[in-house]
């Protein structure tokens, strides 16, 4: 028993008692279960474990603070009607928006932010961190920090391009199939069924083994694999809109299919499609990262998070966290996008009821 442990439990129990006294049910439940959990963890893992719990709690409190201020910042900046929705957004959505914003900035301004070039060898292999290199050097002596910043541009950029292509193909074909119907609809739907019955990672491995791995093939292959998901959604959403009276009216006016899709159907099915775009981006991003991790995605010397994990993986066995940083960067962005999508889905389902 030392002061840290005594202080740790005294604080937790004290604050949860206070919460109970002031009838703050939620806070009490949370704090008291944290106390119970740390009992178990303290017995199993000792003082070190309690420190990790403290640090973790601090991190969560910090990110909650950041998300809160970022949300307030957006509320002030945005026009009144958007600000109203923003004010009601959960903290997780604020956190997601903040992370996406940070990634976008570091991706767009990568050459200005990064102290070194992405392929620039500046020291010996696996050199530890010093005042020049924030995160140390990688397996060839390149600056890890610079490569992570450039990775935001390369990995996210590629995933974004592939998602946009998949979306353009899937949504156009889906809405068109919903408008026209008949044989074409049946044919496209059967093709989509077959593509979706092959697991995506396996299918992309098959295609990449044949067409080789360069950036353009990669984008096209991924777009082909993920377009069917968009197609299905777009077709079912579009199918609900096509039966409306105003579509009938537009048809009687003599408008063409292309006009119907662009001016009548698309604006009325945009909400679920935008949420799907976020989800789709997560899937594509994870697939790109996975392929790069397997050495089949973005090729060196281009800085890319997936391949950075693989190249530095040996460091794990020495207890270094270096390979976890790019992997964590991938996880963080996907979590952030998912948080925002969750919020948008909640809003769109709430508005319907």
């Amino acid at each position, binding site marked *: 028993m030392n002061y840290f442990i005594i202080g740790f439990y005294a604080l937790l129990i004290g604050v949860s008692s206070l919460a109970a006294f002031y009838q703050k049910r939620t806070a009490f439940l949370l704090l008291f279960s944290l106390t119970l959990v740390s009992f178990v963890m303290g017995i199993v893992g000792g003082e070190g474990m309690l420190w990790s719990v403290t640090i973790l709690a601090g991190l969560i409190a910090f990110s909650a603070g950041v998300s809160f201020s970022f949300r307030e910042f957006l509320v002030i900046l945005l026009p009144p009607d958007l600000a109203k929705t923003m004010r009601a957004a959960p903290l997780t959505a604020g956190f997601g928006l903040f992370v996406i914003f940070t990634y976008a900035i570091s991706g767009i301004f990568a050459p200005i932010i990064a102290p070194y070039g992405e392929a620039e060898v500046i020291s010996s292999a696996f050199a530890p961190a010093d005042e020049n290199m924030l995160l140390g050097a990688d397996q060839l002596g390149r600056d890890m920090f610079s490569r992570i910043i450039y990775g935001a541009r390369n990995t996210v950029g590629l995933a974004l391009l592939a998602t946009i292509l998949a979306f353009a193909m899937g949504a156009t074909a889906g809405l068109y199939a919903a408008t026209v119907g008949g044989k074409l609809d049946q044919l496209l739907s059967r093709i989509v069924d077959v593509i979706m019955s092959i*697991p995506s*990672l396996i299918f992309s491995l098959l295609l990449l083994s044949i067409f080789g791995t360069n950036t353009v093939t990669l984008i096209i292959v991924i777009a082909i694999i993920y377009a069917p998901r968009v197609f299905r959604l777009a077709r079912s959403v579009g199918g609900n809109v096509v039966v409306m009276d105003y579509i009938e009216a537009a048809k009687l006016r003599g408008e063409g299919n292309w006009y119907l899709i662009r001016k009548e159907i698309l604006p009325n099915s945009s909400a679920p499609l935008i949420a799907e775009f976020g989800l789709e981006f997560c899937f594509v991003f994870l697939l790109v990262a996975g392929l790069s991790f397997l050495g089949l995605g973005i090729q060196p010397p281009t800085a890319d998070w997936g391949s950075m994990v693989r190249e530095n993986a040996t460091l794990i066995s020495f207890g270094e966290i270096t390979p976890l940083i790019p992997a964590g960067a991938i*996880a963080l962005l996907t979590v952030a996008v998912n948080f925002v999508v969750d919020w948008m889905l909640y809003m769109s389902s709430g508005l319907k009821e």
Partner: protein
Amino acid sequence: MGDILNIIAKRLGLGLVTLLVISIIIFGAVELLPGDIAQAVLGQGATEENLAAMRAQLGLDRAAPIRYFEWLGNAVTGDFGKSLVSQTPVSEAIYTRFGNTLFLALYAAIIAVPVAIFLGVLVALYRNTVFDRVANVVTLTSISSPEFFLGYVLILFLAVKGEYFPAIAKISDDMSLMDKLDRTFLPALTMVLVVVAHMMRMTRASIINLLASPYVEMARLKGVPAWKVIVKHTLPNAWAPVINVVALNLAYLVTGVVLVEVVFVYPGIGQLLVDAVTKRDFPVVQACCLIFAATFILLNLAADVGSILTNPRLRHPK
């Protein structure tokens, strides 16, 4: 009963057709190679004689449809041809490795399924409380993390910092079951983390859907105790969606295993596939893809059949 068998037979037939189409895609994709296999393997510098010899050896001088039916016929009997790199039969390498992959997937499933269903029901009962929100954030994080991130985090904390489990899951046939279970614990745990999160969310959603239905409200209003509402009214109707959720996640387990196998250097079929793709060893790639696709379709079929069996309404399609 005849009705059910009829519907199930129809589903199986549909699955078989899908599998046939996929086998055509897998075979046809290799035919799309610029040049042909011989050209791709031997490279630009190959002489005309070498190419001709290779083509004769692989039987490329015959028409593609004939070779497809030969390949398919052999594949059905378990013969996938010879590897281009090692010149040994592909099936030899695949059998033990596929067994290993199934072992890992089964191991993860046995831990994951009960935990996920239990937690999913619990979270559905206590929905919109703090626990539900915490569970929502945690599962979302776990789903969003790439498998290799979770894998390396587990290695760092459970194998390197605290030496509880081995970081590399090398197993062989002559090891005892306990040894195998110990060696493969970390890869199994990685998959459990991802799959539990998925299953929990899906179970929660389907239970909440059921709890909102009128007959549950009716039961509540007539004064049935809460636990009885769950056990007698909700659970019998929840089996269909839950079985569906489990089967879909098992399908994920078998195919999502590729990345986990590479992280933990596990001798499974996913690792074999990745190696073959890097070496452009097409017979192995084709064989692995066919096996993965077949497993995936089979488990999806199981999900369909399971939900038909447990949901009488689906037995009488309109």
